[in-house]
């Protein structure tokens, strides 16, 4: 992937180490995912799990942000935002669902592994999972709609769970807490995740607690059937005072976590659109239209729509890389948790997920039955990206969140 060609992004922000990572992930994408895609389709055991293991454990993406000393990749400065985007774009390019699962893991880690918010106690607690030889996936639990449960709300979005300080001590990162909530829907991996990063209400403020899947008081429902994202086997969680570890409490850190997460998911969407563009390109090169030996892509009508798909792809990539840079340089742009960065992250995520969805939708329209037949692979990106679009933040919440910053809302 040459970042200044085809769909140029601000290449000056991509460092040599990023390019190396990109190279590695790219090889993985070709060898482990794309090559096996046709036969295995969405088979979890034979394709997806091994591919994730290879990427996250063997190639180290799953521990990239963890410190050297614990066996992680040691990318503990905010610069890692650009590296994350580079890798997640490629992961999403290979398989949207794998990208999404990685995005959850990396966003969670960003909240305690990246300077200036390095939380030694939490690192110690989580390193055995993230830096082990096993595949340990993380799922975030975010505020959004409620369901008649009153755990309080953060910026108008309701917590799915509450958190309680169980010790007599003052709250600090690494403290033991108890988390309670029913029908809690994680972003991913409710059934195949090893730990959950749960944004919950704690004495009237938002807090992040990490609860391992093995915690007492945590039960998962049977996995539910869903539209897409096969690498995430998801289930609802029931937490009854489940024991966890506090990562932080407070608004800014919460917004910072969300900014990172939105960036990560936007990168996955950008990668998925890139893959769809390639599928469409192949179609356009090889098909004819109107029975006259006219190459599909050379017809003005189809060309115009194809051009729109690609143009959107270029714009989205610029947005995602720019957001990454903003998170990479808090000294210039302010902390990831500042309101203007959170608003920008929200905007970029919505532009990316909607734009990707629109592009893939158009590609399907152009490819007609090949668009929805499993064998051309496009329809899987379509299902997966739509799922991301709906999961990460409910549509109107995102809009109101932007309004909150840009117009200074007070009541909502």
């Amino acid at each position, binding site marked *: 992937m040459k970042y200044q060609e085809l769909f140029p992004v601000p290449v000056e922000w991509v460092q040599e180490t990023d390019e190396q990572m990109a190279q590695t992930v790219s090889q993985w994408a070709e060898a482990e995912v794309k090559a096996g895609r046709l036969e295995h389709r969405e088979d979890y055991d034979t394709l997806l799990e091994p591919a994730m293991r290879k990427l996250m454990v063997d190639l180290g993406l799953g521990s990239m942000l963890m410190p050297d000393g614990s066996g992680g990749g040691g990318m503990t400065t905010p610069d890692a935002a650009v590296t994350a985007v580079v890798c997640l774009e490629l992961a999403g390019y290979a398989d949207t669902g794998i990208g999404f699962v990685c995005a959850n893991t990396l966003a969670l880690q960003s909240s305690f592994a990246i300077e200036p918010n390095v939380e030694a106690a939490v690192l110690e607690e989580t390193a055995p999972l993230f830096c082990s030889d096993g595949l340990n996936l993380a799922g975030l639990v975010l505020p959004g*709609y409620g*369901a008649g449960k009153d755990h309080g*709300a953060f910026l108008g979005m309701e917590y799915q769970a509450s958190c309680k300080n169980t010790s007599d001590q003052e709250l600090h990162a690494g403290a033991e807490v108890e988390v309670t909530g029913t029908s809690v829907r994680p972003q991913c991996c409710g059934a195949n995740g090893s730990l959950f990063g749960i944004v919950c209400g704690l004495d009237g403020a938002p807090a992040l607690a990490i609860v391992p899947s093995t915690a007492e008081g945590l039960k998962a429902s049977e996995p539910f059937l*869903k*539209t897409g994202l096969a690498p995430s086997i998801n289930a609802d969680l029931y937490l009854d005072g489940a024991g966890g570890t506090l990562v932080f409490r407070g608004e800014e850190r919460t917004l910072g976590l969300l900014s990172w997460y939105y960036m990560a998911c936007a990168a996955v969407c950008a990668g998925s659109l890139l893959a769809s563009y390639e599928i469409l390109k192949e179609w356009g090169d090889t098909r004819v239209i109107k*029975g006259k030996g006219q190459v599909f892509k050379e017809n003005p*009508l189809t060309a115009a729509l194809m051009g729109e798909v690609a143009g959107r792809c270029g714009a989205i990539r610029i947005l995602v890389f720019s957001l990454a840079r903003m998170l990479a340089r808090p000294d210039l742009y302010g902390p990831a948790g500042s309101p203007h960065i959170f608003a920008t992250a929200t905007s970029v995520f919505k532009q990316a997920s909607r734009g990707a969805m629109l592009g893939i939708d158009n590609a399907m329209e152009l490819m007609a*039955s090949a668009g*929805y037949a499993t064998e051309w692979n496009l329809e899987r990106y379509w299902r997966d990206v739509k799922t991301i679009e709906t999961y990460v933040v409910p549509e109107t919440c995102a809009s109101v969140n932007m309004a909150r910053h840009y117009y200074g809302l007070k009541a909502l």
Partner: protein
Amino acid sequence: MRSIDDFTRPLEYLSPLDGYLGEITRAWAEREVMPLRRGFDEDWEDHETIEPAFKSLMGELGFQRFFFPEDMGGFGMGHSDYGGVGGFRVCEEISRADSAMGVAFAVMHWPLLMICKEPHVNRRLCAEFAPMFCQTEEPVFAANAMTEPQGGSDIENLDLLKGSTIQTTATLDGDQWVINGHKLWPTNSGGAAKLFGVVCTTKPGSSDPDDFAFIFCPADLPGVTQGKPYQKAGMAADKNSDIWFDNVRVPVWYRAHGPGLDFLYFKEMVSWGNVLSLAFASGAMLNIFELLKEFCEETTFRGKPLKENDDVAGVLADIARDIEITRIVGYQSARMLDRPDLYGDNWSDEIVAKCRAYKCFACDKAVEISGKALDIMGPRGSDRARDIEKHWRDLKIVQLWLGGKQLAQMEVARWFYECETL
């Protein structure tokens, strides 16, 4: 309590049978399809749960006899002036439960339109095939074998290509047609259909409408081979596959009407295909409405039901609005098929182009509102347990068939703007 029946239909168009057909179909759908549909995705290859529901509607209730003349055991809709609106209602009700069943059902009737519909009833062929459909309680499928591997939607691109790209040939040998060719993607292929209407050319490369032939071909004849169904993003109840015709012989009178007329009346099928696609979209949209309403009543946000939040209500309103519009247009288009005396022949260029426009509009809206419904639902949108995501997947497929968006645009432009080279 507001229900799907609160969406407007032009009441003056409704057929005398509307209530009867509608209620039977709805009861059937609620009893035999809706409780099971969540499992259809996994049943795409075998149709173990899908088949019994078809049997009950098509065979036992006899809906597969819809167009056949009464004297041959049919419902006689081929010579009524409400086959269009009546068929719309039935397909809408089926598709509320499962639009793939809607299309499988409608396509069963599709080739039969050629021979059962006034003013071009071919009574000899009706008599030939009526027993197959009217004297059984088993579901019997038919299919239009049109699309070919090389050309995508070229076959449906009638005005431009006039059949010149058809590779499936029909050669006269004594009193038999000998059919050779390879068809791809017909609904009800993959082993379902017992009877094909095969689009052939009697002179490869010719764009003379006289050389366009529509020939019936029972699926059990020697030389007919059906492939295994393809897996798709949705629409499991609609099997799509390859069909190969290898020196298949049928009697010469199995050709629907003969030179020129086959081509002409085939355009009528395009009109019907589009209008009933609109019915599938409308039915699925109605179900999205009711499911979404329920979801937005159960789920709370900002301390009240989701639907009472102004921002969410704004989106809900647009969804209701667009369903309302789509349904009105759907019934208007069906009425236009029923009243050629007012609106022109079903096969006229005007009706063909307009029906394409309506279908195209409805499908765009259906795709849009199903997407919006998922957006509103947030992390619950992609639950298969909610069934809305199923409609979302299915509707995208309805949008893309019959030549898809681009072909529709070209036909609409050609007619309304009198374009000559598109």
